[in-house]
């Protein structure tokens, strides 16, 4: 037995384990630091005015109302456009074409779209919508966000439908239910909470997206619900205000960042609890 070799192995193990502890500590500290700074800077500017007043010109008081409303409108529209397409595509992959060549190709491409750079999506919508229409518009922003929603929903819908036991499908078929009824009445119901989770995750994903909105919906200093005109959104306002030299604008940017982060965190926690109740029931 070589004692020095043994000691060296022990030492190496201790060093590696310590490094792993420290790495985890640093990672968690970083999360705490980001959230801490965000809450500290964001809360100081948080007041009722943020939700009731428009974005101000530099040097005066104001809120983020038009940006919040714009974000809500575009998010809802994006989900309304994107989620059905994603659900239908996911349905084909899980129910009709489970062993198709098409399904495996779509799955591969979809996984790539899932992490494709969002700024490219902005350029795409600029080319196909903004340029032909001749102006930046809220509907173009919603379309850009919808492009990001689709892959998220496709992925979760397929995964959740595949979790539905085949015995349920066979039971439905045995009583003579046509396939489309079996899918809409049985499979969708069994996978409902999972599909809703997917949609929630998609909302969380797009509510912080900035890059695809920069040159589709642009920004708007005023309150506007006109889908054919430029529309303000929280992320673009944060971008503009944070990079400005004015202190009150920067404070509003922090407050906006706090609002976005907590909506996103709340959405993902909600999605997670939904997914968890599914497993236990």
């Amino acid at each position, binding site marked *: 037995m070589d004692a020095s070799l043994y000691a060296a192995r*022990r030492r190496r193990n201790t060093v590696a384990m310590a490094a*792993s502890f420290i790495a985890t500590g640093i990672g968690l500290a*970083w999360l705490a630091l980001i959230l801490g700074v965000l809450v500290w800077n964001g809360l100081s500017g948080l007041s009722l005015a943020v939700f009731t007043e428009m974005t101000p010109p530099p040097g005066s008081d104001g809120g983020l109302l038009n940006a919040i409303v714009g974000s809500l409108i575009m998010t809802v529209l994006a989900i309304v456009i994107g989620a059905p397409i994603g659900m239908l595509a996911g349905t084909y992959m899980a129910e009709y074409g489970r062993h198709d060549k098409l399904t495996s190709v779509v799955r591969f491409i979809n996984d790539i779209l899932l992490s494709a750079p969002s*700024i490219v999506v902005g350029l795409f919508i600029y*080319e196909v919508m903004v340029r032909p229409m001749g102006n930046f518009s809220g509907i173009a922003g919603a379309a850009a966000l919808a492009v990001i929603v689709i892959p998220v929903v496709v992925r979760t819908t397929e995964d959740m439908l595949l979790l539905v036991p085949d015995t349920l499908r066979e039971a439905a078929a045995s009583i003579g239910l046509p396939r489309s*009824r079996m899918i809409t009445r049985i499979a969708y119901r069994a996978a409902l909470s999972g599909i809703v989770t997917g949609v929630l995750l998609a909302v969380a994903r797009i*509510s912080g997206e900035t890059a695809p909105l*920069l040159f589709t919906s642009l920004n708007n200093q005023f309150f506007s619900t006109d889908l054919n005109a430029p529309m303000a959104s929280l992320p673009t306002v944060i971008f503009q205000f944070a990079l400005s030299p004015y202190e009150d604008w920067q404070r509003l*940017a922090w407050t906006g960042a706090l609002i976005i982060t907590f909506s996103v965190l709340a959405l*993902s926690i909600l999605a997670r609890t939904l997914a968890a109740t599914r497993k236990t029931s």
Partner: protein
Amino acid sequence: MSAQDAADRARALGKLRLGDVVFRSVTRIAAIMVLALLGGVIVALVIGAMPALQAFGFSFLTTQSWNPVTEQFGALAPIYGTLVTSLIAMVIAVPFGLLIALFLTELCPKWLRRPIGVAVELLAGIPSIIYGIWGLFVLAPFLQVHVQPALISAFGSVPVLSSLFAGPPYGIGVLTAGLILAIMVLPFITSISRDVFEAVPPVLKEAAYGLGCSTWEVMRHVVLPYTRVGVIGGVMLGLGRALGETMAVTFVIGNAHRITASLLAPGTTISASIANEFTEAIGEVYTASLIALGLILFVITLIVLAAARYMLLRIERRIG
């Protein structure tokens, strides 16, 4: 059964059959739309980039000049910036991610595993603009005052490193952007590595422990070789994110179209150039050049992501 009943029955069946065919085609069209989306993005970008590609041809990729006044555009500086910031991010995030995954799978007490796992995933869900604003107001000033002067004086007399850490400490710059990217991709790398580590059959690990291996040796000689393909896939997925990340970088890179050896100098990336300049771009060639940049970015990330997915598929097949 009367003739009337039979006719009703046939009509009802026909309706159901029609409904079936329609539903099936609608879902199929939706699936094909996903493919069309990718094709559409590529076609739209190629058409949009055409004026620039015609004007500069292949030299677009190899020219550094970026001059809106004379309308001379080249993509070399943004491509260089994109690659360097992503490289810095990977050099930092990969070891950290693997060590955290090791902690989560081997060392962490059971009750702590879920909270830390959730925290890592929440970190992955924070929008990138938050990292950007944090980088601009917190990280950059900190680096400028405390870290960069120390780097400059520490490496000032070392031959190669002195050019890497040259120039005044701006705070913002290539190094800061790389650091922010590292923090952003860390959760992705961690959660994928953890998932593939957990998929290692316990028998393999137990056999190694039974031979008297230390935890580190099990990790190094059993878990890592077994999951190599999956880990590389996860790393490349993180790389794909880092390459295309826009907002976090745009805040802290400084947007300067030049290539300098110094990591402390301001630079630019493909996505940051587009985000900063697109709405202000006047003239067809300027806009087209920015779209051409987007096309290059899309092609690079497509290749990286496709390779990543292919590797992850391979390990899924082996484990599943």
